[in-house]
């Protein structure tokens, strides 16, 4: 095994400056402590000030400030619970799996730091039922910490797209089906057992650990003053699937080959947005800069399809329609209708008006963000590829590789 990359059957993990710096040393607690040391005592006020300085954001589509989530949890009434989501319901995302298998103790240190700041000893880990390597890595790491005064509860998330939505995770922890339900207050205020619940993904906890272990100055040494630090991306291109750690505000040509920058790219995964061919050349891996261009980094999936982007968007929409939990009427009726409308656009048998109407009809009408995310991806494809829509309307396609003819 090379010390700069870690290969499994499916994914290559590339050594990075911080989160992915441990590759080669192994995932043990001893190796982790040798590299990072031990976190000192954490005070909530200090932690909140440091978090605001580094502007740590969650990896959901909205990029919610982690400091605000932590502060809400701390202020809410009742004993808090810390929940680490190590499960990625999105098939093309492997960043949390990469972290779990190469640096599980960064995730666990971050969870312990959060628990100490919230004066709780209860930490829940949610691992993917279908990924044995991740489950085993986290179980081994937890076992190495048997002497620590924290109780760890491990839950297995279903292999479905919506299983990672916050309310679905709380349902799983409560012994009910791992599917979204309506929530009337955020989990930070009223989550597991009606108590304040700090629920974030594995990468966010690992970033929290790095902040505490090495201090805010080391954190802001990467990225820019406006957007400090690094982020994980799962990149799918001609080279297969790889997880990389990049400094925020890095140019995209650090991530993708020049040839791929000239092609359409799906950013942020199946709930993400499409960058038109060449659009990323002038942009950086910046949440703010991408938002200004109408794009989102989401959970960091960067996908360069090897076929027509409109055809690919249609396939993704069909997949997402099938991943509806089947609980909310507008979603289980609306997403199949939307997917069918997009199929008609691709086949040149329908205009975009019906697809756009259905996007507006499903948005904000579900217990979770699945309809909203699906509509975002479809809208973005229709908006970014008007020429391709026209070509399909005339029975053509500019991408011969998907068999439609040029």
């Amino acid at each position, binding site marked *: 095994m090379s010390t700069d990359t870690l290969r499994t059957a499916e994914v290559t993990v590339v050594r990075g400056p911080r989160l992915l710096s441990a590759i080669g040393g192994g995932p043990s607690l001893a190796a982790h402590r040798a590299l990072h040391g031990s976190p000192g005592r954490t005070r909530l006020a200090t932690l909140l000030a440091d978090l605001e300085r580094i502007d740590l954001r969650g990896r959901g589509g909205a990029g919610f400030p982690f400091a605000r989530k932590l502060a809400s949890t701390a202020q809410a009434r009742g004993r808090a619970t810390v929940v680490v989501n190590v499960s990625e319901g999105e098939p093309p995302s492997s960043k949390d799996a990469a972290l779990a298998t190469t640096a599980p103790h960064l995730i666990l240190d971050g969870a312990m730091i959060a628990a100490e700041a919230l004066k709780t000893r209860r930490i829940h880990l949610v691992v993917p039922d279908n990924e044995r390597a991740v489950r085993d890595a986290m179980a081994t790491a937890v076992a190495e910490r048997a002497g620590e005064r924290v109780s760890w509860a491990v839950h297995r998330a279903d292999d479905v797209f919506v299983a990672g939505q916050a309310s679905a995770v709380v349902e799983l922890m409560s012994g009910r089906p791992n599917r979204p339900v*309506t929530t009337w207050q955020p989990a930070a205020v009223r989550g597991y057992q009606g108590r304040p619940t700090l629920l974030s993904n594995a990468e966010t906890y690992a970033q929290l650990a790095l902040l505490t272990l090495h201090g805010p100055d080391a954190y802001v040494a990467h990225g820019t003053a406006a957007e400090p630090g690094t982020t994980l991306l799962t990149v799918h291109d001609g080279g297969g699937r790889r997880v990389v750690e990049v400094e925020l505000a890095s140019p995209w040509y650090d991530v993708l080959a020049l040839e791929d920058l000239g092609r359409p790219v799906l950013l942020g995964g199946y709930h993400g947005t499409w960058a038109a061919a060449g659009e990323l050349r002038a942009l950086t891996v910046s949440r703010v800069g991408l938002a200004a261009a109408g794009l989102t980094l989401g959970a960091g999936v960067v996908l360069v399809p090897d076929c027509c982007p409109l055809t690919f968007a249609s396939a993704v929409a069909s997949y997402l329609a099938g991943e509806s939990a089947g*609980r*909310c*009427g*507008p979603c289980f*009726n609306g997403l199949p209708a939307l997917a069918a409308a997009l199929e008609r656009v691709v086949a040149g048998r329908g205009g975009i008006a019906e697809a756009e109407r259905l996007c507006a009809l499903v948005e904000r009408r579900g*217990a979770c963000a699945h309809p909203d995310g699906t509509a975002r991806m479809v809208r973005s494809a229709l908006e970014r590829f008007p020429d391709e829509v026209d070509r399909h309307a005339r029975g053509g396609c500019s991408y011969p590789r998907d068999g439609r003819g040029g």
Partner: protein
Amino acid sequence: MANGRLRVDWPVCRARGLCFELLPEAIELDEWGYPVVTGEITPELTGAARAAVRGCPRMALRLVQT
């Protein structure tokens, strides 16, 4: 009095449509019979909105403050 907002508990809703019959001023139905909330609940509509909340056989509608 500030405007209120209707929220639907979507997994609970079964498209019975009573909310539309009781509050057509603020609710339409989509092609599958599920409610589309079309506006905020003004003070004048509050009484009718409360009736719609009580009238839902699934208890799937709530009036919340904005």
